[in-house]
C-alpha cells in the first residue's frame, strides 16, 4: 500500500486506477436509493472484488440528503476512506458541496436534471439526464420515483465497468421469484447503461476488473449476524423497543427464528419476541425471563441504555443472566441517531448507580457479531450476570464481507443450574443450598429455577442486601462479603471471555490497542505506516473486564496508542483505571464525528507523535 501513501489519494492524468477507489452516491432518502446502492455493492462483490458499503443517512424518513460510500479495494481494505474518487450526484440540495469535496482528477456522474452545471475543470463530469431517460420507459408514473435511481446504477456500471450480468444476478437475489420487479429495474438499468455507452466518450480513470477475492464469502449486515448468532445461541425471549440503529436486530431475529424455531407439527413458536412499551419494560422482561431460566436478550441504543440503568444494576446485584446488545450511535442525549460511535463503552461497563460492573463483549466484524451472538448467553449464564455486546451502527447496519460463520464449537453452557435431583445431591454434599453460597470458590452460586419441584428450591430474588442464603440482610459484614464475592466473580471472567487478538511484528516501534469497528482502519494504517518505516504490534481487545494479556502487552511496549471512536478516550480510561502503573505508556487517539474511522486519521495522529 506504499503507493497510496506516497501519491496523494487522487487519480492523476491518464493513469487508470483499477479496483482501488471509493465511490460516493449522494441521493435523497426514501427514494429507493438503498436498493440501487446495494445492487452496486453486490455486483462488485460478485465480480470477486473486495468491497464495503457505508450508508450515511439522516434521521428522517424521506426527502433528506443521504450518502452512500462504496469502497473498492483490491487489497481487501474495508475501512472508510476520507476521500471519494467517484461521485454519483443525485441530490440537488447537496450537489454543490458534494462536487467541492471531489479531489482533482475525480469523477462526477450527475443527474443533469438538477439545474446545476459543474464548473470544476480538474474533474471529469458525466451528465445523466435521468428524467429524460425515464421518459423513454413505459414505467407507470406511480412507480417512477422508486426506480429512477436505477439509472445511475446502469450509467455507473458502464462508466467503471460493472458487468450487467452480475447486476441482473444481484437483482434476482434481492427479489427472488419476483421476475416482474427484476425486469422493471433491469430495464431502467439498461437504459442508463446504454445512455452512458453512447454518450460518455472520455473513459473513467477509475475502473473495476474482475478478481477472485470474494469466493466463499458473503455480504451481510452486523445486526443480521447478531440476530443469527442469537438464534444459534438458542434465544428464548427477546424483548425490544424500536430505536435506530438497533431495530434491525429484532427484525432479523424475527426472520431467523420464524425460520428455525417454529414447530413443524403445530406451527407454534418456541421463542417469544415481544415489542415492549419502552426500554424499561424491555429490560424488565429480559430479567424476568432470565430469572425464570431462559436465554433472554434485548437490543437497544444510547437512550435505551440510559433508561435501562436501574435494571442493569439489579441484574448485576441479583445476578440474573441477561444480554443487552447496544448498537451504539452518537451521544450524548439523542445525539446523532443515524451516525456511528463507540461512545457508550464507559456508560455500559459501569451502568447503574453504586459500584457496578458489567461484562462487555466487543465484536469487530461479522464473524464476531455472530459468535458473540451465541456466546453472550453462555457467558451470561455461566457468570450469572448481565452481558453487554457493544456493536455500533457501522457494524450493525452496513454491508460487510465475511467468511461463512463457524457453527458453535461448544454445546450450550447453561451455567450452574440445579434440578430437583441435583439439588438433593447438593444439599447432601454441602448441608444446605444457598442461591449465593459460593461452594466452588469462583464467586458463582447455584441457581434453582422457578418451577423446580423441590421444597427447598425456592428463594427470594431482590435488589436489596442479602446473604448467601438469599435472605434479606442489612448487616455490614454481609454486604462487604457479598460485594467482594461479586467483584471477584466478575474479575474471574477476565481470562474466560473472548481474549484479545494480538498481531506482532519483529521489533515493533510501538503498540496499538483498539476494539470493535476501528479495526479495519487500524489494519490499513499498519500497512500505510510500514511505508514510513514505522511498525507496530496490534492488540484488539474483545471484552471487558480486560484480559490479563492487556497488561503484558502494554508492559512490552514503551508507547501504546489506544485508538477508539469516541470523544473521551474511554477504553484508554478503562485501561488506566485497571493498570494505573502503566498509565504513562498510553497515548489516546480518540475521535468521534459520527463517521467510521479512517486509516488516514490514525496514521496522521500517530505520525504527529512519532
Amino acid at each position, binding site marked *: 500500500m506504499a503507493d497510496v501513501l506516497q501519491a496523494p489519494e487522487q487519480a492523476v492524468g491518464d493513469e487508470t486506477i483499477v479496483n482501488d477507489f471509493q465511490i460516493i452516491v449522494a441521493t435523497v432518502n426514501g427514494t429507493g436509493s438503498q436498493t440501487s446502492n446495494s445492487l452496486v455493492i453486490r455486483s462488485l462483490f460478485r465480480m470477486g472484488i473486495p468491497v464495503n458499503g457505508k450508508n450515511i443517512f439522516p434521521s428522517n424518513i424521506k426527502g433528506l440528503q443521504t450518502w452512500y460510500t462504496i469502497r473498492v479495494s483490491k487489497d481487501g481494505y474495508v475501512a472508510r476512506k476520507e476521500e471519494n474518487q467517484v461521485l454519483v450526484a443525485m441530490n440537488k440540495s447537496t450537489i454543490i458541496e458534494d462536487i467541492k469535496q471531489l479531489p482533482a482528477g475525480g469523477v462526477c456522474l450527475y443527474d443533469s436534471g438538477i439545474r446545476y452545471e459543474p464548473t470544476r475543470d480538474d474533474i471529469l463530469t458525466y451528465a445523466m439526464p435521468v428524467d429524460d431517460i425515464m421518459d423513454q420507459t413505459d414505467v407507470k408514473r406511480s412507480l417512477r420515483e422508486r426506480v429512477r435511481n436505477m439509472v445511475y446504477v446502469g450509467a455507473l456500471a458502464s462508466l467503471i465497468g460493472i458487468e450487467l450480468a452480475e447486476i441482473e444476478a444481484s437483482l434476482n437475489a434481492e427479489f427472488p421469484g419476483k421476475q416482474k420487479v427484476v425486469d422493471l429495474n433491469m430495464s431502467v438499468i439498461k437504459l442508463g447503461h446504454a445512455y452512458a455507452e453512447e454518450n460518455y466518450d472520455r473513459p473513467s480513470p477509475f475502473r473495476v476488473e474482475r478478481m477472485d477475492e470474494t469466493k466463499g464469502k458473503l455480504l451481510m449486515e452486523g445486526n443480521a449476524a447478531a440476530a443469527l448468532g442469537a438464534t444459534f445461541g438458542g434465544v428464548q425471549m427477546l424483548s425490544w423497543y424500536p430505536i435506530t440503529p438497533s431495530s434491525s436486530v429484532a427484525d432479523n431475529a424475527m426472520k431467523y427464528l420464524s425460520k428455525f424455531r417454529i414447530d413443524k407439527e403445530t406451527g407454534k413458536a418456541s421463542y417469544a419476541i*415481544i415489542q415492549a412499551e419502552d426500554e424499561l*419494560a424491555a429490560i424488565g422482561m429480559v430479567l*424476568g425471563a432470565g430469572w*425464570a431460566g431462559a436465554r433472554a436478550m434485548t437490543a437497544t441504543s444510547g437512550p435505551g441504555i440510559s433508561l435501562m440503568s436501574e435494571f442493569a444494576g439489579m441484574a448485576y446485584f441479583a445476578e440474573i443472566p441477561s444480554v443487552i446488545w447496544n448498537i451504539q450511535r452518537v451521544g450524548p442525549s439523542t445525539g446523532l441517531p443515524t451516525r456511528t460511535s463507540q461512545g457508550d463503552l464507559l456508560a455500559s461497563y459501569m451502568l447503574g448507580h453504586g459500584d457496578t460492573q458489567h461484562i462487555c463483549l466487543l465484536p469487530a466484524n461479522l464473524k464476531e457479531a455472530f459468535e458473540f451472538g451465541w456466546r453472550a448467553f453462555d457467558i451470561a449464564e455461566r457468570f450469572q450476570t448481565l452481558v453487554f455486546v457493544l456493536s455500533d451502527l457501522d457494524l450493525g447496519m452496513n454491508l460487510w464481507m465475511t467468511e461463512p460463520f463457524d457453527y458453535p464449537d461448544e454445546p*450450550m453452557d447453561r451455567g450452574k443450574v440445579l434440578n430437583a435431583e441435583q439439588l438433593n445431591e447438593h444439599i447432601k454434599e454441602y448441608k444446605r443450598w444457598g442461591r449465593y453460597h459460593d461452594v466452588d470458590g469462583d464467586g458463582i452460586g447455584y441457581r434453582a*429455577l422457578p*418451577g423446580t419441584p423441590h421444597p427447598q428450591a*425456592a428463594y427470594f430474588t431482590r435488589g436489596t442486601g442479602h446473604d448467601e442464603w438469599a435472605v434479606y440482610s442489612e448487616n455490614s459484614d454481609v454486604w462487604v462479603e457479598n460485594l467482594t464475592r461479586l467483584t471477584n466473580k466478575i474479575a474471574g471472567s477476565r481470562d474466560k471471555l473472548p481474549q484479545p487478538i494480538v498481531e506482532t511484528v519483529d521489533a515493533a516501534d510501538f503498540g496499538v490497542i483498539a476494539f470493535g469497528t476501528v479495526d479495519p482502519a487500524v489494519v490499513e494504517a499498519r500497512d500505510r505506516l510500514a511505508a514510513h518505516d514505522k511498525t507496530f504490534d496490534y492488540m484488539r481487545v474483545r471484552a471487558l473486564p480486560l484480559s490479563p494479556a492487556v497488561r503484558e502487552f502494554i508492559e512490552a511496549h514503551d508507547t501504546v496508542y489506544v485508538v477508539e471512536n469516541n470523544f473521551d478516550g474511554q477504553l484508554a480510561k478503562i485501561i488506566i483505571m485497571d493498570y494505573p502503573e502503566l498509565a504513562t505508556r498510553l497515548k489516546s487517539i480518540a475521535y468521534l464525528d459520527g463517521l467510521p474511522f479512517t486509516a488516514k486519521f490514525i496514521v496522521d495522529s500517530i505520525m504527529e507523535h512519532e
Partner: protein
Amino acid sequence: MAKTNTLDLTKNDYKGRPSTLCPGCGHNAISNQIISTAYDMAIEPHRVIKLSGIGCSSKSPAYFLGRSHGFNALHGRMPSVGTGAMAVNRSLIAIGVSGDGDTGSIGMGQFKHVMRRNVPMVYIIENNGVYGLTKGQHSATQDEGVPQKYYGINEYPAVDIALEAIVGGASFVARSFSGSPREVQALLSAAIRHNGLAVLDIISPCVAFNDTDASTKSYSYVRENLDVLHEVEFVGYVPQAENIEIDERTYERQGEILVEMHDGSRVVLKRVDEDSYDPTNRHEAIRQVEEARRSNKILTGLLYFEPERRTLHDVENLIDTPLVDLGEDVLRPSKEALDEIMQEMMI
C-alpha cells in the same frame, strides 16, 4: 397433627417469613388471605412465582408462600418482570403484589401495558392511598380532600385503579377490602384460575400513615362505605357435577350469575339487592365504578370479566411446552441449518 390439604401440605407450608410490616397493616391481612387461598386450593407451591415492586406492599411476598420463588423487583416494574417470566414458563402461576404508589405513580405505564398483553397473572394492588415505606406521602390513589400529616391536603383527582384497568383492557377486574377475607379469598381463587391478567384492587389501610378519620382509606371509612356488588363464591372444578350444556361463560341461574373459569371452576355471584350484576358488560362496569367513585363508595366484587381475550401466549403463538423446558436440540438449530443460510447468502 396439623390439618393438610389434598397435597398433604399443612397451612404452615404456605406461610412465609414473619412479617416485618406494622401490626394491623392491611397488607398483612392480604398475605394471610393469600396463604389461606393457596392452601384451600391446594396449589403446588413450587408452581407459584411471587412478584412485586418496591414498597411495604411489595415486601409482603416474603411473608407468604415461602416455598415459592419470589422476585422483589424495582419500583413500578413488577409487570415487565412478570411478563418476561410468564412468557418463558407458561406452567407457572404468577402472583404479583404491588402498591398504589408502585402501580399508580411510577408504574402506571407498565400497569397499562401488562393489561393490554393479557399476561396470565394475578395483579394485586394493595391500595392504601399513601406511600407507606417512604413515610406517608400522598399516592396517586389518594382521594381529593384527604389530608396528610406532613403533606397537607391532596388536591389532585385520584387514580381509580379499577377504572383504569377496565378501560385499559384488563380481562378480569375486581375490587375488595383487606378486611373482607371471604371476598378477597373468593376473588383471589377466581383470579388464579383466570386465564389472563386479573387485577385485584384491594383497599388495604396503612395504620401508620393513612388510618385517620379524614382518610377515605381508613378502616373505619372503608367499613362504613363498602358497597358490595354481590356475594362472591368460588367453586373449584367438580367434574360431572353439572350436566347442563352451556356455551356461555357467564349465565344467570336463579338470580345468581355464574362465571365459568377457564378450567371449569366457577365463580358464583349472588345478588345482594334487586338486580343482579353482569360483570361481562364493560359499559355497565364503567358506569358502576364511576358512580361509586363520585359518591365516594368502595364498590367491591367482580367488576369486570372478559373470558375470551387472547393471552400473551396466544398472541405469541407459543408452543404448549414451557420455553424453559426446551433442550439444546430444539433451541439451537443444526449445523446444516447454518450452512444452508450461509450458502444461500453466498450466491
